[in-house]
């Protein structure tokens, strides 16, 4: 939680995005956003019931997921539509030059020194995720801001996001997975960093039904990670997520968000032990072995489920390698997160392997040079700054800044070699260049 001047009711209202149309629709938006509008009321458990219900959580989860028809979708969405004629509601806007209303949304150009922010002061019902849909962006970033009702006015939650610069671009944030998140809000908004320039299409606040959340838990249990360099040192294992968005984003961050399934397993084991111990005492400590066997049975069942889950994940690594690399013909081989790097180098080897040195240029801050060095050895790649005048081959991998102009290799338009020719083209930004 950060200490910030959030603005709010007493903030400096520099611009107000509203029109008669939008204020009218704002009302409907507010009303649709009230907690009553959600068809599924919050689940209130009494203290006495809660432990029992929790004990049946996993079984219930399984039953519900298996029995529920997939059509039972109950996603609730609050939409603030910024397109012409859309329902955007009332916003306090600071730090933006006069927002320009376009057909595809509102154009926001933040102040080049301070950035800009849009705040909506209103009571909002609980929601799980946020979706910001932009019609157009430039590379930059910003933050989603929120103010929990119980906090002082100058304390806000902040969650950063990056913008790649695409048309359109969607930012999805599964806010409920963050420890700082408090669903009891009285203000919500976002800020854009200086240099950003976006056309905001709409903002969506999403809330999934308990059934959908249970389904997400089940699906996230079976959501496998891919084989990365870290997989030789640790495997995350099953991570439980509670929304479809969280499930879709699983293993895309380091570390991944969510609950380790071990927590559930340990809870089940503990609960089993407590129940069995209680029963054992109730039976005046008779039949201890029977209770021990029951505990072992539960433990064995959890072990087997875990083994099945992890076994399938490890097998999926191999299967993925076989189908995307080993069984593919040259030119179509993709290897894990390094894409066609190995394929490119392998295809270049007949040219570069018989010479003492070659030049490799790949994306910075990647281990690709080391891989090229290993695969091409005893031919070795020269390093940045080395004299390349005696080298005959330049292997370029995924470098859009390097091309060929007038028969010479150029970087950012400046020649870096003598004249030569591309002897192998691998993709739009990867090729093998030979100096004449």
């Amino acid at each position: 939680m950060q200490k910030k001047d959030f603005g709010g009711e007493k903030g400096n209202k520099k611009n107000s995005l509203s029109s008669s149309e939008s204020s009218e629709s704002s009302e409907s938006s507010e009303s649709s956003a009230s907690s009553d509008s959600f068809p599924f009321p919050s689940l209130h458990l009494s203290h006495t019931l809660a432990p029992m219900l929790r004990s049946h959580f996993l079984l219930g989860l399984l039953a519900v997921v298996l029995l529920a028809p997939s059509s039972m979708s109950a996603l609730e969405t609050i939409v603030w539509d910024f397109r012409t004629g859309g329902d955007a509601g009332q916003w306090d806007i600071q730090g933006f030059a006069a927002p320009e209303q376009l057909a595809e949304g509102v154009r926001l150009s933040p102040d080049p020194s301070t950035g800009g922010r849009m705040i909506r002061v209103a009571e909002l019902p609980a929601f799980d995720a946020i979706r910001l849909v932009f019609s157009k962006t430039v590379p930059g970033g910003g933050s989603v801001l929120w103010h929990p009702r119980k906090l002082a006015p100058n304390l806000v939650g902040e969650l950063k996001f990056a913008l790649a610069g695409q048309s359109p671009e969607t930012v999805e944030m599964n806010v409920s997975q963050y420890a700082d998140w408090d669903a009891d809000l009285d203000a919500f908004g976002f800020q854009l960093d200086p240099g950003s320039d976006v056309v905001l299409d709409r903002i969506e606040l999403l809330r999934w039904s308990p059934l959908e959340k249970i389904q997400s838990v089940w699906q996230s249990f079976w959501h496998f990670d891919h084989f990365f360099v870290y997989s030789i040192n640790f495997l995350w294992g099953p991570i439980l997520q509670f929304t479809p968005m969280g499930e879709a984003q699983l293993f895309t961050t380091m570390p991944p968000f969510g609950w380790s399934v071990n927590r559930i397993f340990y809870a089940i084991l503990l609960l089993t032990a407590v129940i069995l111990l209680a029963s054992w005492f109730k039976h005046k400590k008779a039949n201890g072995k029977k209770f021990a066997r029951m505990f072992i049975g539960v433990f064995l069942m959890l072990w087997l489920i875990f083994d099945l889950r992890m076994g399938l994940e490890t097998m999926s690594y191999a299967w993925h390698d076989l189908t995307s690399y080993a069984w593919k013909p040259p030119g179509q081989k993709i290897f894990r997160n390094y894409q066609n790097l190995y394929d490119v180098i392998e295809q270049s080897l007949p040219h570069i392997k018989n010479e003492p040195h070659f030049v490799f240029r790949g994306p910075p801050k990647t281990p690709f040079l080391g891989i090229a060095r290993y695969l091409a050895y005893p031919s070795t790649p020269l390093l940045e700054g080395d004299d390349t005048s005696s080298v005959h081959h330049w292997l370029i991998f995924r470098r859009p800044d390097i091309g060929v102009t007038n028969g010479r290799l150029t970087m950012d338009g400046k020649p870096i070699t003598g004249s030569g020719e591309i002897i192998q083209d691998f993709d739009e930004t990867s090729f093998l260049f030979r100096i004449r």
Partner: protein
Amino acid sequence: MKLLLLPLGLAAPACIGWCLLRLLEGQSPVLGRVERWVFGSVLGLTFTLFITFLAHIVFKVPFSRVGFLSVQMLLLALTVLPVTLLKLHTIPPAHSPREESTPRWAWILLSMLLFWTFLKILLGSAMLVSAPTYLDDTLSNWNLRGKLFYETKALTLILPTQRPDATIPSGISSYPPTVSMAKAWLADLAGTWDEGLANSIHLIWFLGALGIVFFIVRRVSSTFWGAVAVYLLACLPLYLIQGTNPYGDVFFSAHLASSVGLLFLAVQSQDRRERNAFLRLSAFATALLPFTKNEGLVLYLPLVCAVLAGSFFWMIKTKRLSQRDAGIALSWYLGLALMIIVPWIAFKMAHDLPFGNAKGIAGMELAWQPGVINAIMVNTFFEGNWLLLFPLLILLFIFCYRAAFFSPLAVFSAAFLLLYLGQMPIFMFTGLSTEALFQTGYARGLIHLMPILIMLTTLLLRDGWMRLRKE
């Protein structure tokens, strides 16, 4: 098709290992033929490569096909001849595996799990031999050095990752060259560097570790429990991943399991000759530890010595081992260890190679490293690496404490606790804390211990099972 060269490349070292073990057993063979092949394949290859290393630095025997072969032929002659002359191969082993009554349902369940395990290993093996080199340490150490040895036909210490004019060896070169030499030998045999063939050797070490665990557990229980141990070890996701990728830790774990496992068999043995034979075999496996990974010399050898000292103390105190036999056994341990350690350390010192885990241990400052305990807890209890092994082990330690700490199984318990807890100060108080914080070295340390841990877990499970069945 080059993969067919793997058994050919292993034949002579495995044979050398078989004969060496048989010679060490002397007139009281304790290992079954298949058992000896399993131990012999793992230990024999390492020993053969050690002698090749010696021949290379002393007599300049190159790392070429002829060079490797000449050492192997000589060793083969030196080991096969005495075995044949003394007719040692004709003496049958005294031990035959016991069989215990096991419920039918347990066998059916275990068979299904073993089939499931077989599928996982099969696919993992396919990945091992068909995927290109991807992992950091493989690219900078195991395979790169193998390729270097193969291309230069020598134990070259300046790596291609260094500047061409570099004169000081890379820290990576401080690692024992065993794994890389094995790859260079296979490449020499094939006449070319083949990724699949070079990596396939890791499968042998993985299967070797499974075999070692199976035979040690079976020896003190039954085939059923031996198979349970195989399932338990192979189903651990991180061990399976390490076993089916070109990494050096499963290789090391097989040696450590041999060293401690054979010591355990000696401790639990009721027969004097059998016990002495196991101690000689354990001495041989222990001696090889420094030539496997750097950790083998600076971390595990001292701790194994501590377990050894405790075991000897207990055996002498309970009059299982006479002081004379203890002296002879210790001489074996000392003599064999010095045979490996002295040339290796001399070589390291002569070339100014550091001691430690590629990063030198000299000059490390001691200070509390925050966050390490949390990282260790997460890796051990909240990830998919070990399934529910550690909670299971804790429960077994509680409910089977007599078997765990007051029976020969205490060798495994002590080995695990000493070796595991012995690593903790390194993570908690030195700059190597990054190995725990980034979950690199910590998990590998557990990989080293996993066969020992699984043997202990299986035998404790059996103890619990027996107690439950007594009704």
